[in-house]
């Protein structure tokens, strides 16, 4: 396997006395798609939020592209440039137009000239199939459209890795597909992806590896075919029974 882009080595995190992450270790190689699943409160969101330091880990090591995440602000900003993130609640900037949302970070963080940033932005808006919304404000778009803009916004930074934190959980059912379609397309193009999601159909289609978490620990790691057909642990069997059972 090539040099991993993301490496977590015995990562531990506490919220006060509550031990959220217990010795979490995993590595993600270039082009790999990893889906993290597990019951709520299992720490799966916390793990991926540690990867770009939205959460701070207290013990263990996290390396992104060979750079270790420490308290060093410059280091953190360097890593964040290369790691795109898509949130459950979109988090578009409501006071900026869609186009401004997309060009802001490339322009300010990567110092891309505005003209070039705009071209890139339009390219990705076409990729997520809403170029006609470029001059609207996020508040004027539907949830699905907003999430697609959020994906485009992350892509405009030309990241090495994309993190998805339950990207479809806040969407109305009829809008989930349009977002998943974009994500599947992205996966087929070879983007390295770490997704926290409950969309098991999506996981089956694109994941190279399933990571199942419970109570702050990685309980099971397996290719999706194996994981869905014959989960090794009782905890995973239970979880799959609950979410696939109806």
């Amino acid at each position, binding site marked *: 396997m090539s040099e991993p882009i993301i490496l977590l080595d015995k990562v531990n995190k506490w919220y006060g006395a509550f031990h959220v992450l217990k010795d979490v270790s995993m590595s993600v190689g270039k082009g790999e798609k990893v889906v993290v699943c597990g019951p709520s409160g299992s720490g799966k969101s916390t793990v991926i939020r540690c990867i770009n*330091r939205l959460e701070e880990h207290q013990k263990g090591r996290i390396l992104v592209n060979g750079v270790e995440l420490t308290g060093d602000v410059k280091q953190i900003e360097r890593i964040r440039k290369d790691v795109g993130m898509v*949130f459950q609640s979109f988090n578009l*900037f409501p006071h900026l137009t869609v186009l401004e949302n997309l060009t802001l970070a490339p322009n300010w963080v990567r110092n891309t000239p505005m003209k070039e940033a705009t071209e890139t932005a339009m390219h990705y808006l076409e990729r997520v199939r809403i170029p006609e919304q470029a001059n609207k404000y996020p508040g004027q778009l539907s949830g699905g459209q907003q999430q697609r803009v959020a994906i485009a916004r992350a892509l405009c930074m030309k990241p090495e890795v994309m993190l998805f934190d339950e990207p479809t959980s806040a969407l109305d059912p009829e809008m989930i597909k349009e977002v998943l379609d974009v994500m599947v397309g992205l996966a087929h193009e070879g983007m390295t992806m770490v997704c926290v999601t409950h969309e098991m159909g999506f996981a089956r289609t694109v994941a190279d590896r399933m990571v199942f978490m419970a109570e702050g620990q990685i309980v099971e790691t397996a290719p999706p075919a194996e994981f869905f057909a014959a989960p090794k642990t009782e905890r995973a069997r239970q979880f799959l029974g609950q979410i696939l059972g109806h």
Partner: protein
Amino acid sequence: MSDNASHAPKTASEIASHVEEPSQAELHTHRRNAFAALGWARENLFSSIPNTILTILSVTLLVWAVPPLLDWMLLKATFLSEDPAACREAGGACWSFVTVKHRFILFGLYPYDEHWRPLLAMGLFIAALAVSCDSRFWNKRILYVWALALPLCGLLMWGGWFGLTFVPNDKWGGLPLTLILATLGIVLAFPLSVLLALGRRSDMPAIRAICVGYIETVRGVPLVSVLFMASIMFPLFLPEGVTIDKLLRAQLGIMLFTAAYLAEAVRGGLQALPKGQYEAADALGLSYWQKTRLIILPQALRLVIPPIVNQFISCFKDTSLVIIIGLYDLLTTAKTALADPSWRAFYVESYVFAALIYFLFCFFMSRYSQYLERRLNAGLKR
């Protein structure tokens, strides 16, 4: 074409009916309007028994209060006579007092023959303020405007160049003084307050402690005592021979005081923003100051326009407290104008005049903030 022709009236009776129709319709609308007015009255003024009682009470109050007020203000008022006796005779408001004393009230102890200078400076100042309110100037141009306006105002007020006699700033007074104290106080306090609010939410304990300490201390004391300290205690700490101008000290006092209050309003806006906005900006790799300038403040500040303007208005009126350190602001000159024994009786007129000026400025700020809110939120409608 052929269609139009077929619709054109052909016989005399048809033409007549065409002529009649509008007049009938007009009659109809008249009648409808009358009904609508009655309907409106019934719906809004007499819809229930309590509402009817309130309507009757309000009308009674108006009938009782308005005619005497008009009588005093206008009908029996004296406007131009320069003799106080004429006022006493007429029995109404003595606006003559304002006619006679307005230059002292507006410009204080500024040399009488030079009053055109503060007048011009004030005009310039207000024009620069007006221009700053226009969003088309919210770029580098606003800096040019002020870079031109402020030195010019200073030149007019102080003089000493170009054949203008020098007027030391302890002779300044009235409206120019109030405007300078309030505007500079607000304009300088605002950036400081943003820094204080950001500092209070900082991760760095030392910065947070300083900001919390500053805000809580300044908020905990009255402006009067801040001004007193600035004017009486502060000079005691200065080395011998060093003096800082009294006006400057008052200006600093007002600014530092206003900043502490404003900071809390700004902090309210910072806290009202969803955490996701901070996280999204972080995740894109924006630095702290980029995030703050581009994402956080533009949203946070528009959320808190009402309390900020509240504070601006309050600051504008609080400048009148500089009376206690002997500066002649607008309210002080209005009061001092009454020292003239022959006009002493007309204090109501003097204060009404000053109040009117305060009201004009505060009312404008209030209206402008409403316009600003509408304008800035135009794109955010959900």
